[in-house]
C-alpha cells in the first residue's frame, strides 16, 4: 500500500541490509579495483626513462594519490568518534577505508617502481605495508568472528557471567564448610586463585595453565569421592559447583579470546599508522629538499 511505501522510504532499506564488505553492492571494491587497474595499465604503457620511479610525472601522480589516501584513511579514527549531524554512514566509510586501503598496496608499489633500499623511503613503504596487512587481518576478523562471538554468548551477557561466577563462589564457600582441611584448601584454589581474563597471552590463546578452578577440580577428584556418607555428598556438591564454574569460565574466556582478537590488531594498526605518517612526512620532505 502507498502508506507502507512511504514508511519504508523513511528508513534504511531492510531488504538490502548488507555488512561493511558488501556495502552498496561492493561499490568501494569496484572503485578500488578500477583505481588499481588504471594505475597498472598506466604503469605498463608509460615508458619511463631511465626506469620507473617516484620522480617521473607518473610517479608524482601516484605519490600524490597515495599520500592523500593515507591522510584520508588515517582520519577514519576521528570520523568514528565524532558523532556529527548530517547524513553519513560509518559503514560506508569503513567499506571505503578497507578497499581503498588495500588498493594502496598497488599504488604504493607502483609509485616506488619496485625499487627498494635501506632508506627512509622504503621505511615509509614498509610501514604502509605493515599497516595494510594488520588492517586486512582486522577486516577478516570483523567478517568472521562476530558469528562465533554471538554463538558463544547465546543470550547471556558478560555481566551475567561475572555475577554467576561470584554467586558460585559464595555457594562454594558454604559448601566447603563440612570438608576437611586439604579438601577445603582445594576449594580455596578455585575461589581465591582463579583469574578470568589473565595476561595477554592467556586471553589470546584461551589457555590458562595455572587456572585455580581446574586445579581445584583435579585436586577434588584426586582426593577421591564416592560413597553415600554426608561427607561424600558434600564433596559431590563441591565437585558439581566447580564444574558449573568451569563451564561459565570457559564461556567467558572464549568470549574474551574472541574480543581480544577483534581488538588486538588495532594496537598495531593505529600506532604504526602514526609511525607511517611520520615516515611519510620525512619521505616527502626529503624528496623535495634533497632533490
Amino acid at each position, binding site marked *: *500500500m*502507498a*502508506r*507502507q511505501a*512511504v*514508511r*519504508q522510504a*523513511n*528508513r*534504511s532499506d*531492510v*531488504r538490502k*541490509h*548488507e*555488512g*561493511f564488505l558488501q*556495502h552498496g553492492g561492493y561499490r568501494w571494491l569496484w572503485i578500488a579495483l578500477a583505481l588499481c587497474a588504471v594505475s597498472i595499465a598506466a604503469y605498463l604503457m608509460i615508458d619511463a626513462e631511465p626506469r620507473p620511479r617516484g620522480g617521473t610525472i607518473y610517479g608524482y601522480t601516484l605519490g600524490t594519490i597515495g599520500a592523500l589516501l593515507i591522510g584520508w584513511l588515517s582520519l577514519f579514527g*576521528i570520523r*568514528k*568518534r*565524532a*558523532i556529527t*549531524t*548530517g*547524513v*553519513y*554512514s*560509518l*559503514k560506508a*566509510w*569503513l567499506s571505503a577505508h578497507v578497499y581503498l586501503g588495500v588498493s594502496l598496496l598497488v599504488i604504493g608499489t607502483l609509485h616506488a617502481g619496485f625499487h627498494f633500499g635501506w632508506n627512509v623511503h622504503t621505511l615509509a613503504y614498509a610501514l604502509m605495508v605493515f599497516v595494510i596487512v594488520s588492517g586486512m587481518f582486522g577486516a577478516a576478523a*570483523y567478517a568472521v*568472528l*562476530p*558469528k562465533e*562471538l*554471538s554463538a558463544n*554468548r*547465546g*543470550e547471556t*551477557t*558478560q*555481566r*551475567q557471567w561475572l*555475577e554467576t561466577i*561470584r*554467586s558460585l563462589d*559464595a*555457594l562454594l564457600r*558454604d559448601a566447603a564448610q563440612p570438608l576437611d582441611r586439604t579438601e577445603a584448601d582445594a576449594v580455596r584454589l578455585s575461589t581465591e586463585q582463579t583469574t578470568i581474563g589473565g595476561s595477554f597471552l592467556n586471553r589470546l590463546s584461551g589457555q590458562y595453565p595455572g587456572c585455580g578452578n581446574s586445579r581445584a577440580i583435579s585436586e577434588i577428584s584426586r582426593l577421591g569421592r564416592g560413597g553415600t556418607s554426608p561427607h561424600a555428598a558434600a564433596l559431590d556438591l563441591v565437585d558439581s559447583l566447580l564444574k558449573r564454574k568451569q563451564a561459565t569460565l570457559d564461556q567467558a574466556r572464549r568470549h574474551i579470546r574472541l*574480543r581480544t582478537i*577483534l581488538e588486538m590488531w588495532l594496537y598495531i594498526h593505529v600506532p604504526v599508522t602514526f609511525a607511517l605518517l611520520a615516515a611519510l612526512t620525512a619521505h616527502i620532505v626529503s624528496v623535495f629538499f634533497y632533490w
Partner: protein
Amino acid sequence: MADKVRIAIVGSGPAGLSAAAHAAKIGVSHVLLEKTDHLSDTIYSYQKKKYVMATPTQLVLRADLDFEAGYRETILDVWNKGIADGGVNVRYNAEVKGVSGEKGDFTLTLTNGDKVQAETIILSIGTQGNPNLMRCPGGDLPHVQYQLADPGAYIDEHIFIIGAGDAGIENALGLAADPAQANVVSIVNRSADFSRAKDANVTNLMAARDAGRVSTYTEASPAKVEGGWITLEIPDGETRLKCDRIIARLGSSPPRKFVESLGIEFTSDSRDAYPKLSPNFETTAPGVYVIGALAGYPLIKHCMNQGHDVVEYINGNVTLAPADEPILAQKLAHLPGGLPVAAWLEFLREKVEILNGLSPLQMREFLIDSEVRFYRADEVIFERNSIGSSLFGIASGSVKVEINAANPAITVPISAGSIFGEVGLISGRRRGSTIRASEDTIVIEIPRNAALKLMASVKEARDTVNRITTERTVLQIFGSGLTAHDVADVLAKSEVKEIKPGEAIIREGDESYDIYIVRRGSMVVEREIGGKPVFLNYIPAGQWAGEVSLVEGGKRNATVRAAIRSEVIKLDGDLFRILLNRKPELVARLRAEMSTRRRINEYIDKEKDKFSGVLDYYTSVAKFLVDQGVGEATDVLLIDERLCVGCDNCEKACADAHDGLSRLDREAGRTYANLHVPTSCRHCEHPHCMTDCPPNAIHRGPDGEVFIDNTCIGCGNCQRFCPYGVIRMDKPPPKKPGLASWLLFGMGPGPGEPDKAWKEANAKAGDGSHKQAIKCDMCSGIKGGPACVRACPTGAAIRVSPENFLSVALLDRGRE
C-alpha cells in the same frame, strides 16, 4: 462530640492542606481529618530526597501555603510549618468510615468511633486508596508495615515481603541490595509463578534468589504473625520462620466504593472515571465537594489551587475565576469573535458532538490540554502520511478529506459537530488522508491522552467515536467510489471485538468468510505445513484479513491470530458479498491487494520441500520478534550479530547525540538466530509509557518517534509502565571537553557516556538539574537520523518496522 464546623476536609494531601490553610486564613471554622499520623501521606511516602516538580509552570499558585519545586523534605517542612503557623485545626489518625446527614448537617464517623459534625465536606483523599491489609491472625501487630520508605534503614533483620507484584519485588531487592546490611530477606508469593510483575523485576529477583540474597516462597501465604515469628502456609503444610519485620504489598482498593457510598455519582462505570462535578467542585451529593487527584487533577499545583478555590466557593464567593482563567484566555485569544472564556467553553461543548457530555469543569481541564485552532478556507489541517494521534472536533465551518492521493480534487466533506483524525488516534499509525478546511473553520485539537480519557469517562463520546471510526475505516481502506450509504448495511451488523494475544480470529480449514479489519494491534498469519505452523505474514493495524475466502470461496487457507492485544472490526461475509456484487471495482481492488500475500503463499508452497530449514527459520524468528514486542513496535533497533563486533559505538553515538546519556543498552536484551533485540525503545503504536504521565510530557513526534519533553517531573511512572525496560531515570552529566582535546591531550572521558566516577568528580556544586526520564527519541531533530545506525561501522545496527521486516526480507535472510 465536637462542635459543628463549617467545613470538614477529609485527606491532607496538597489539595486538602491548601483548603484547610485557606479556611484557617479567612476564619472559617474547619477540621482537617488525616488518617495517618502525619500530613500529606503520598508525598511523605516518596523515597528520601525525591525531587518534586512544580508543573505546569505557567499556572500561578494562589494557595496560602508555599510550594515550589524542591526536595520532598523541604516541601514537607514548608507545609508542616505553614499548617502550624496558620492555626489549622488538624486531627491525625482520623480515618473517616462513614458519612450520614445532608448539606448543612453532616455527621462523619471515624474508625475509632468518634463523630465529627460539619455543614459541608471537602473530599481530597486522592486515588491511592487504602492498602489491602493482612487478614491473618497477628496481621495488626506493629512490625507489619505497608510501605517501605528507605530500604537502607534496616540492618541485620529477618524481613518478609508479602505479595510478589512489582512493589513487593522492588522492596525485596532494595532490602537485599547491600550485603553489608545483612538482612535476611524473603518474599512470599501466593501463586506459583511471578507473572504479575514486570519481566525485568522477575529476572532480577530470580538472580537474587540464585545468588542466595533473597529466599522465595511460592504458593505460600501467611497463616499467623507473632512477635519475632511468622507462620507460612506452604504446599506441604505450615512452617514457622524467624521474622523481625513484615512488609505487606498486597495492592490497594481504590476509594471509589467509599466515595459512592456518600451518594456521589461517577461519570461512567469505567475504572478511569471521575466523580461528576459542578464548576464549583460540588458533587451530585449536595454539600460534598471533591478536589485533587480524586477529581482528576494529579498535579500538585492544580490541587492546591482547587483547595483555595473550593473554600472560597463554599464561603459564598461563587464568582471567583479559576486560576487557569488567564491560560485559557491566552489560548483562545487568537480566535475570531473575541468571546469570554466561559462563552468559548460553552460554544465548543455545545457544537462538538463528542464534548456534549462534559461538565463545564471537565471542559476547562480539557481545554488546558487541547488547542483551539482557526483555519482559513483551503488551509491544510494535516497531511497524508504525517504522524499524529490527536483527534479533531469541528466547532464551526467544515473540512474536506482528500481521499485520493493521486487526485486531490476528489474530496469528502465532514461538517460541523463531527470529528476527524480518529484513525490515527485508534491505530497509532500515520494519517491516511490530507484534510483541508472547506471554509473558515474552528476546530479543537485534542491530544491522544485527553481523547482517550474523554472516551473512557464519557460513554456518548466513546460510542460516537467508535461509530464514526468504523464507518471511516471501512470507507478508507476499501476506498474507491464507496459512500457511507453503500456500506450502511454492512456497518449496521459490524462488531468491534477485542482479541487477546494469541487468540485466532480465523482458523485454517474453517468454512467462514467474514472479513476482519485490524483496528489496533497487529495479527500474524500462519499455515500448517508438515504438522507445524509456518509464519506467512504480518498484518499491522489499518489492514484487513480474510478476503480470500470472501472473494473466491473455499475454506480458510490460513490461521490469523493476534500478535498482541488487538481490536478488530468484524464485517459480515454475506452482507459484504452483496456489496461486492453491486460494486465490481471493489472486487478488483481486493484482488489487487491479495496478490502480494499470494506471492508469499506461493513462494512458500514452492519452497516447502526444498527449504524446510528456511521456513523453520522464518517462522521461529518471526515468533521470537513478535514475543520481543516487535508486533506492537513502529520502529525497532535490531542488531545483526553476524556483523556486530561489540565496539559499542552505537551506545557512544547515542550518548554523544543526546547530552551524554545513552538511551540504548546494546548487550542487554534477547538474541535469537543471530538477531539481537537490544534494550532500546520500540516506539510502540500505543506506547505503554504514556499510560499515566502526570505532566503529559510524552508525545509522538513528526517522524513517529515517541519522546519525552522536558516538562518531565521525574516521577518514574513511564519507566514502570514500559514492559521492555528501555526508560532510565538520570540527569545529564557535566559537559565534557571536546573530541580534539581528548584525542590530542587526553582531556575528559572521551566519546560516549562518561563513567560514574568522572560524573561525580566533575559535577558542579548547586547544579539544579534533577533526574528525568530518558529514552530513545529516534534522534528527532538531528539531521541524518538515528545516530546508532549511522555510527555502526559494520552495518550490524538496523532500524526496521515490523511490516517490512516480517516478510520477504526475513525469508531472504534465512536463505543466506
